[in-house]
């Protein structure tokens, strides 16, 4: 029975006028779809009652449709090259990042002219975006059965750390699957929604999400009916997969298997390790039965304590990002109201202990940690499609890295600082550097460092048609806009003439979470160095501008206003500054600028006098005195 809300006069909702919306958790190892039924979010099972769809796609020869889910996962061992798993790790990444991944994986990659990596399969080259689209299509089909038609809109969750290109690639995958993406939602934010923290009291909450392949920690603040993500941190190469690998390696060593397992045997070992891991969440000890390649069985056992010792450092590694996120959020641990656990790996008792110890309180586990994200996405989708018109719940996310542009001297000017809530619009005025400059090249950057070369280049574009003016007179407003999906558009507008240029930043696929993190760490580690660099660059710019101005003045008036000795002095000081400015000695450059200033003071005075004389010349004194003759 549907629960009703009081409507305005004459506005009672028509029954069955609801629009079909679904929430999708597109995970590294598993994916789920959920929808709101009778005001309650529910995950949608397949015909066999399974809710989790393994994020595995198997491609078949001769144009047969790809197989997704359990059947594909079952075929991993027999058909490893055509069975793609964990493609989320690659979505939105460039081919340049492949060597590291390729070394660790058993896949074969197709050569192509695109920078997007493609798996070589019997169905031809397949990109991670296409494989993700297959998973989304399977989920949408499942949802259609429950909704009574294809979903009109979906909310897809992504890790909080996904950058622009990874988000864009996810949207592309949805488009290929024929889905209308209402919005991308950060996974931890979705979890908080599922727990109904939006109906609770105001407070600051932590969401600890240890999934199959990624770890995310987010600090959310809920105030006045609005969720705001205060900070996010994580480790994109840490999850249940690593736990499985650790356990598999242990079993392999115990069973005396060599290092050179073929693809199939390796997969089998991982599947076994996974089952043992899951068993150890409920049992203190598990028996292991492994069929060796030779055919005979190996029997072993492992206790929970042994298992915990094996993985203790993996769990410990989640705590540093937790510390970072709490610090970034600017809160003390005891200010946290609730802690939520998300992701199948949080079923491991050791994880729960570690989290409880770190945050000093028991975490919420009431909602199935595998489903909680999809449930939250479904609630959000229901609101966005318009089924709850009166709902004022707004979800705010943050941008993971600062966005800015390059300014003279190879410096980065931040326009939107990191952890700004999105959607966000920020504008800043810039000007021209040279007289008569009619074009401005804009270089859009992402990152925390001071120098352009240390940050990531997102896009370049040009603003042309600036009216010629003296340096510094033009006013160019650069506007950065980040929409609710975290996608950036940048526009530049010259204020006097109104010429405008803009760019949608669909960045070349390619910045990994590891990079985002290492960029953050680097910014901290290099804070002092960066500051020094910035000062040096700015000093050099000042030196260049002084020299340029003086050289121009000398060419014009040097002969006329200075004697030979004075000219030699100035030329000498100029040469010294020019020489020193190639180096990095700040004090020396500063000294040379001052010296040049000193020797050219007399020149500046004479030019000033000369300018005044010129202004007056041709006019009789009488003109100024009022006397008519002369």
């Amino acid at each position, binding site marked *: 029975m549907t629960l009703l809300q009081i409507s305005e006069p004459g506005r*009672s909702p028509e029954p069955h006028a609801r629009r079909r919306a679904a929430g999708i958790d597109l995970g590294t190892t598993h994916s789920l779809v959920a929808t709101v039924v009778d005001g309650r979010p529910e995950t949608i099972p397949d015909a066999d009652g399974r809710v989790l769809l393994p994020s595995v796609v198997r491609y078949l020869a001769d144009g047969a449709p790809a197989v997704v889910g359990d059947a594909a996962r079952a075929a991993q061992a027999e058909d490893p090259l055509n069975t793609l798993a964990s493609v989320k790790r690659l979505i939105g990444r460039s081919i340049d990042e492949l060597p590291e991944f390729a070394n660790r994986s058993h896949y074969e990659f197709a050569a192509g002219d695109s920078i997007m990596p493609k798996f070589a399969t019997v169905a031809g080259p397949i990109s991670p975006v296409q494989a993700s689209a297959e998973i989304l299509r399977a989920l949408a089909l499942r949802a259609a059965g429950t909704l009574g038609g294809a979903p009109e809109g979906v909310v897809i969750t992504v890790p909080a750390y996904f950058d622009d290109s990874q988000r864009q690639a996810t949207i592309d995958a949805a488009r290929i699957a024929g889905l209308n993406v209402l919005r991308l939602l950060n996974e931890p934010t979705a979890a908080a929604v599922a727990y109904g923290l939006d109906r609770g009291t105001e407070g600051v909450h932590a969401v600890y999400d240890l999934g199959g392949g990624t770890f995310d920690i987010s600090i959310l603040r809920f105030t006045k009916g609005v969720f705001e993500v205060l900070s996010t941190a994580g480790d994109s190469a840490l999850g249940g997969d690593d736990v499985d690998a650790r356990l598999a390696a242990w079993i392999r060593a115990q069973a005396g298997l060599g290092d050179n397992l073929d693809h199939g045997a390796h997969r089998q070992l991982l599947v076994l390790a996974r089952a043992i891991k899951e068993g150890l969440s409920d049992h203190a000890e598990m028996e292991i039965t492994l069929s060796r390649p030779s055919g005979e069985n190996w029997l072993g056992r492992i206790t929970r304590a042994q298992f915990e010792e094996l993985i203790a450092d993996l769990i410990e590694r989640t705590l540093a990002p937790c510390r970072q996120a709490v610090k970034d959020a600017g809160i003390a641990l005891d200010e946290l109201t609730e802690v939520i656990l998300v992701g199948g790996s949080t079923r491991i008792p050791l994880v729960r202990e570690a989290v409880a110890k770190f945050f000093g309180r028991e975490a919420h586990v009431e909602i199935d940690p595998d489903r909680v994200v999809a449930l939250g996405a479904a609630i959000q989708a229901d609101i966005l499609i318009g089924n709850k018109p009166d709902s004022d719940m707004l979800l705010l996310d943050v941008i993971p890295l600062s966005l800015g542009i390059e300014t003279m001297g190879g410096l980065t000017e931040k326009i939107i600082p990191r952890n700004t809530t999105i959607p966000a619009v920020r504008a800043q005025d810039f000007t021209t550097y040279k007289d008569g400059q009619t074009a401005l090249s804009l270089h859009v950057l992402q990152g925390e460092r001071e120098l352009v070369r240390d940050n990531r280049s997102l896009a370049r574009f040009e603003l042309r048609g600036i009216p010629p003016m003296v340096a510094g007179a033009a006013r160019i407003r650069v506007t950065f806009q980040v929409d609710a999906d975290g996608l950036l558009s940048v526009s530049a507008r010259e204020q006097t003439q109104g010429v405008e240029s803009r760019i949608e930043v669909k960045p070349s696929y390619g910045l990994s979470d590891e990079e985002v993190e290492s960029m953050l760490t680097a910014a901290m580690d290099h804070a002092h160095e960066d500051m020094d660099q910035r000062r040096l660059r700015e000093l050099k710019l000042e030196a260049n501008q002084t020299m340029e101005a003086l050289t121009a003045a000398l060419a014009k008036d040097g002969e006329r206003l200075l004697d030979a000795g004075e000219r030699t002095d100035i030329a000498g000081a100029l040469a010294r500054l020019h020489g020193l400015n190639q180096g990095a000695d700040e004090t020396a450059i500063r000294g040379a600028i001052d010296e040049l200033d000193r020797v050219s003071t007399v020149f500046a005075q004479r030019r000033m006098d000369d300018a005044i004389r010129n202004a007056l010349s041709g006019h009789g004194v009488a003109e100024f005195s009022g006397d008519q003759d002369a």
Partner: protein
Amino acid sequence: MAITMSPSAVRHVKGFLESRGKGGGLRLGVKTSGCSGLAYVLEVFDEVDKNDEVFDIEGIKIAVDRKSLIYLDGTELDYVREGLNEGFKFKNPNEKNSCGCGESFSV
């Protein structure tokens, strides 16, 4: 002919009317629509119509048009929480069937 309200429904209706700041009271009714015929109306009202029957429950004015009242006689309006969702529920003895999604019913 009678309609009743549970204490929690009374509390929530009063809260709603207070926060809205204006309104004469609550309108209950049925309208024809949906897969098995009828759907409930739950609205605030600003003016009563000449066809309305008006009840007073715990100081709340409840307006029901005469036609709807036939279908609603004996109904208790309740306010419940189910899982993550909460809202009003018509406990209507006249209701014979409701469709799968529970948004419409028949008598």
